[in-house]
């Protein structure tokens, strides 16, 4: 009897899940394009598939894309909370059914890039990718061969890693321990960037341990402890990620066992308490992890949807990452960039990147702006 009840419950849960997936995408009732602006007869609609808007990056992307859409007179429809290929594909189908003529998405994995891309191609819908490069070469070749593929923009993690190693080298630190990402994941380019940086700056990665996928902080504790015990000459730790408690575990272990004179850290992503660690000399540099990739990709896509494409072929843009090297820069970053209430680019700049408002808009306009992107530029050009 009990097994029957369990079976019925499980079946009901499955049915519920299936039914909810058939529902309309996770549209936000407060989506700005519906408020205020009166859509013109030819107003275009773009769908955005993103992991969520609850964290710093997500909320910034949400606000900047919505604002840009409002400025250039495009409707946006959101699909949030998808964590696997199947879910992202379903969202793409739903968005297209809802009238979207373009899809911007951050693929959760390479397979998603292919599946969603294929769907869009088959249905004559423009698509573009933000925040990710495609690692699998076959999938990349397929996507780049699609007629409706506009292009992508992703952060230059490898370049950021090299830059941070250069900062360490300037501080006289050349013997590194690496908190390494699993080579199979997309962010593993950070490993390569650190390696390249070490070579370019006359340094050496003497030891490494792999970030645990079970989030077990003991792995970080043991890894750092082994670094300190086995390599007394080690003078810096290269962190590929600060998330899932990695930063806290690593920093707490360091603080209990050594000094900031002995060891400095460079890291991707800011974490709580990083400002204090900058001040006390523990952290030399951090790749701040939030940049307007999505905005550029959205504007690029909008141009294609509206019939003013920037190029006849796909476009790959590389977004410079902001490297912060002090507590003050951390504060500035949080104020100007990691802040959903702050628009990095003015409405004029946004319009200048759209064919409706600037008939001479070109790819160079995009790349120039992206090249100029820095904390100082943002502070200087701030209109808020």
């Amino acid at each position, binding site marked *: 009897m*009990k*097994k029957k009840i*369990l079976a019925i419950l499980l079946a009901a849960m499955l049915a519920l899940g299936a039914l909810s997936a058939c529902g309309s995408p996770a549209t936000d009732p407060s989506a700005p394009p519906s408020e205020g602006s009166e859509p013109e007869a030819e107003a275009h609609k773009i769908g955005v598939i993103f992991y969520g808007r*609850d964290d710093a990056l997500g909320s910034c992307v949400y606000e900047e894309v919505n604002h840009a859409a409002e400025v250039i007179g495009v409707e946006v429809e959101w699909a949030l909370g998808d*964590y696997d290929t199947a879910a992202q594909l379903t969202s793409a189908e739903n968005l297209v059914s809802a009238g979207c003529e373009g899809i911007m998405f951050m693929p959760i994995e390479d397979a998603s890039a292919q599946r969603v891309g294929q769907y869009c191609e088959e249905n004559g819908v423009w698509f573009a990718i933000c925040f990710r490069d495609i690692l699998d070469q076959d999938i990349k070749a397929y996507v780049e061969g699609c007629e409706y593929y506009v292009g992508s923009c992703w952060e230059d993690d490898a370049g950021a890693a090299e830059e941070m190693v250069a900062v360490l080298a300037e501080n006289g630190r050349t013997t590194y321990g690496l908190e*390494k990402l*699993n*080579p*199979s994941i997309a962010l593993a380019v950070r490993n390569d960037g650190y390696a390249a940086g070490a070579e370019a700056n006359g340094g050496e990665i003497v*030891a*490494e*341990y*792999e970030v*645990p*996928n*079970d*989030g*077990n*902080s*003991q792995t*970080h*504790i*043991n*890894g750092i*402890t*082994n670094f300190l*015990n*086995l*390599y007394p000459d080690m003078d810096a730790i290269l962190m590929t990620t600060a*998330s*899932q*408690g990695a930063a*806290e*575990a690593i920093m*707490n*272990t360091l*603080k*209990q066992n050594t000094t900031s004179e002995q060891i400095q850290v460079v890291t991707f992503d800011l974490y*709580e308490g990083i400002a204090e660690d900058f001040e006390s000399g523990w952290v030399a540099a951090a790749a701040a992890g939030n940049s307007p990739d999505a905005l550029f990709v959205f504007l690029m896509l909008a141009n294609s949807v509206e019939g003013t494409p920037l190029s006849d072929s796909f476009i790959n843009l590389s977004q410079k990452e902001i490297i912060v090297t002090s507590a003050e820069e951390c504060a500035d970053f949080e104020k100007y960039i990691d802040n959903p209430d702050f628009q990095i680019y003015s409405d004029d700049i946004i319009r200048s990147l759209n064919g409706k408002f600037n008939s001479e808009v070109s790819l160079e306009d995009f790349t120039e702006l992206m090249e100029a992107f820095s904390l100082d530029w943002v502070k200087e050009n701030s209109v808020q």
Partner: protein
Amino acid sequence: MQTVIKGVRKYILMVAVTAILVALLMLFAPSTRSLSILVTLLEQGMAPALLGWGVLFNIKAGNWDFGVGAEVLIAAIVGGNAADALGLGIVGVVCCCMLAGLAAGAVSGLLYKLLRVPTIIISIALMLIYESVCGVIFGGRGVTLGVEYLVLASFPGNAVMLLLGFGLAWLLSSKLKIGYSIKAVGSNLKVAEDNGIDVVNTKAAALAIAGLFAGLYAAVSLGSSGVARTVSAMGTMGTCFNAMMCVFIGLSITGRGNVLVGIYFGAVIMQMIQMALMVFSFPTQYSQVVVALFVVAFMLASANTEGLRRLKRRRAAANGAKQ
């Protein structure tokens, strides 16, 4: 004197195996030749041993519990946040984490008792549920504790926790009836049942006990790192498997000694393997392969000890036949 000799014989295998491996490591990796490295290994083995002792109860009872990693996570997040909110200090963290872990394990045991489906199914379902719950409670932020809590990463804090865990495991396994019942149920269900042991309740109790030790491990992790973050997509299974490997290695080297001590040495050996991989710059993506091969080798050696003895006899007999 007899007692001493008896004691030495009981523990000689586990100590000798560990010592030989340490000696080999030091022989081939000069950077490991120091007392501090030895101390580091002994310290690094402490936390995994705690979880390993909990897993042991499940293995003894014949339970397949893949949810123990998720129990660690939920115990850390619930227990850590509760203790911090109430200002209970590290002792409060330990108590709250253990209570939360025990509750998580008890839910597992209760579901097993009510539903009577295999423990592997219950544990996987709860693993998914606990991981999801952790993504929701406390805003999905996990737990972050201040530096004042970080007293369990080094001596004497870690030693106190090890002794606490050992005492608890020893009490449960040797001084309370439940330990014997668990052993009986896992070894021969029919005979255990025929002798009046309630099999279902015993297996459920083993699940709860594993949760208790998951809480203890969670407390030690928090008291060392100060943080626990949410994990999804069955990521916590890694924690569970690592603990199981400590137990398997420990069981294979325990011999006639106390299995709890054997598991501690098993945990030390696991850490030694990790250290060796680092020292010899072995590519990290293959580290799990190496660990798995070691575990298989230990299990093979343990299972085939009789075979090795027979081989020796066969050779002696063949030599005798020739003469």
